[in-house]
């Protein structure tokens, strides 16, 4: 093996091990920032030693043992410094602490509780949403600062600072490394799920830039979601979120044409949907249905997505069921966006005029001001009613609102088609 070969292998090992490593170390040192530093130190040691010695049989255990020795060194050094100023009793206390560190337990965490604690701490409410996302991708996803910056089209120093600040905030707030209980669990879990879904969505429908989507982010979110189903197998909404992401991801290949232009759901080539992911999604949905009587918001969205997956052709779609599922969703998670989607489903189930009536009622909704999908949906329904002039104006308005270049072009094409008095854009 050449050195660069070994380095690539070490990268791969680190990707597999880093989250577990940082989680185990955080339990020992009670500080996420310090834990990551120690893990990085171990990685540097591996980069120095493995090209000579070869990759050890149990690379995870090697990294953990190395990081732990660094931790003990650090403590000893601090102890020596403190000895000058303090009583011997203080040192005794620190010696006790070192003795209490259980190396083997730190490496071997069969239930994955440490990983779960790390997820909760990365998504802690003392952090801003941006910070939660960055920290989760860094510590749990094992992504580098550069990779996160590239994925979110943000300068590297911005992300680096965001991560540093987030770690400092956690330390200063003395956030405990624990799994929340009781009513706290629901709220904290909601934050974890939200962060994962945010990452997924940023990949699925990139809000800005040239690319319509960034599948690597979807893959990362899916991986985190799948890990979470193993850690909290009895939480229905965890399965609901995973079901939703699996099903949405099943359409990634079909969502763009060879030139990179987006293809809308009903126009997608369903033969290109990933049947494996659909099956996994439907299985996860079945799990959440087994676990809970009433479906949560993610599970309901997954159930809606599943209606499309089950239909072999757009015409076979069970729109009436979709409307009913949106009704349920509007009950537990009322939002104008849900109302808009429901209106579109109503149009499909009961005709464009019925849908348009509902969409029109939403045009005065202040929170939808600037939301490009509202004029876009309105334009679509007007087109179906052959009211092309009005439709064109709506598509143009929608185009002026989106920050995604590809999506803007799609909307402008539809506006141009309306100007010709036709529903279909030129291809």
């Amino acid at each position, binding site marked *: 093996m050449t050195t660069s070969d070994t380095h*690539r*292998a070490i*990268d*791969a*090992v680190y*990707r*597999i091990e880093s989250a577990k490593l940082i989680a185990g170390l955080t339990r020992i040192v009670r500080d996420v920032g310090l834990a990551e530093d120690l893990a990085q130190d171990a990685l540097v040691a591996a980069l120095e030693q493995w090209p000579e010695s070869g990759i050890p049989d149990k*690379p995870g255990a090697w990294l953990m043992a190395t990081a732990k020795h660094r931790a003990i060194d650090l403590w000893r050094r601090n102890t020596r410094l403190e000895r000058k100023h303090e009583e011997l009793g203080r040192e005794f206390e620190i010696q006790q602490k070192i003795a209490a560190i259980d190396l083997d337990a730190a490496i071997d965490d069969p239930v*994955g509780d440490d990983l779960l604690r790390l997820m909760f701490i990365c998504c802690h409410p003392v952090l801003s949403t941006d910070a939660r996302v960055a920290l989760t991708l860094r510590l749990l996803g094992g992504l580098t600062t550069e990779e996160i910056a590239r994925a979110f089209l943000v300068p590297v120093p911005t992300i680096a600072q965001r991560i540093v600040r987030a770690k400092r905030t956690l330390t200063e707030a003395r956030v405990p490394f624990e799994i929340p209980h009781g009513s706290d669990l629901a709220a904290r879990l909601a934050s974890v799920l939200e962060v994962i879904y945010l990452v997924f969505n940023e990949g699925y429908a990139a809000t800005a830039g040239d690319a319509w989507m960034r599948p690597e982010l979807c*893959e990362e979110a*899916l*991986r*985190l*979601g*799948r*890990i979470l189903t*193993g*850690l909290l197998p009895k939480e229905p909404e965890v399965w609901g979120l995973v079901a939703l992401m699996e099903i949405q991801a099943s359409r990634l*290949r079909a969502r763009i044409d*060879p030139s990179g232009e987006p293809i809308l759901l009903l126009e997608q*080539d*369903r*033969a*290109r949907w990933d049947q*494996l992911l659909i099956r*996994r999604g439907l299985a996860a949905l079945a799990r959440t249905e087994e676990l809970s009587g009433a479906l949560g918001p993610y599970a309901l969205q997954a159930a809606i997505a599943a209606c499309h997956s089950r239909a*072999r*052709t757009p015409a076979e779609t069970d729109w009436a069921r979709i409307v009913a599922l949106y009704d349920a969703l509007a009950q537990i998670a009322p939002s104008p966006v849900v109302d808009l989607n429901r209106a579109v489903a109503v149009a499909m189930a009961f005709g464009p005029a019925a849908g348009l009536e509902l969409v029109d009622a939403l045009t005065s909704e202040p929170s939808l001001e600037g939301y490009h999908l509202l004029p876009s949906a309105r334009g679509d329904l007007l087109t179906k009613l052959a009211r092309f002039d009005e439709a064109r104006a709506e598509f143009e308005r929608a185009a002026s609102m989106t920050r995604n270049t590809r999506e803007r072009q799609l909307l402008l094409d539809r506006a141009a088609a309306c100007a010709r008095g036709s529903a279909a854009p030129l291809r």
Partner: protein
Amino acid sequence: MRFMVLVKANKDSEAGILPSTELLTAMGKFNQELAKAGVMLAGEGLHPSSKGVRVRFSGGKPTVIDGPFTETKELIAGFWLWEVKSMKEAIEWLKRAPFGGGAEVEIRQVFEADDFGPQFTPELRAQEERLRAQTAKRAKP
């Protein structure tokens, strides 16, 4: 990226002898690790080739050849489908699998839409669409 991990057959697997309880337990544990890490998409073991057939396409009509097939080392006894970030990561995972006794396991990258690039022509797309329409028609009662 997706990788298919192909486990080759051996004399035992071809004779239909199931692995020892010990190996099954170890393999179960490994599968659990894969699932827990969000890596495993699918994984199955296959019956021996004596229960398989081959369909040969040459000349006019396809001919069916019944198993077993002799070239044991070329046969597949099972497979996984993994989603990881790189071939190196797939290798690192495979190294942790509880194989022994001269077993040989192959890792192959799965084509993704992007890999086809410009070769995925409009004609191919049209062909796929026809196929889809036919399948949909046939599926209807």
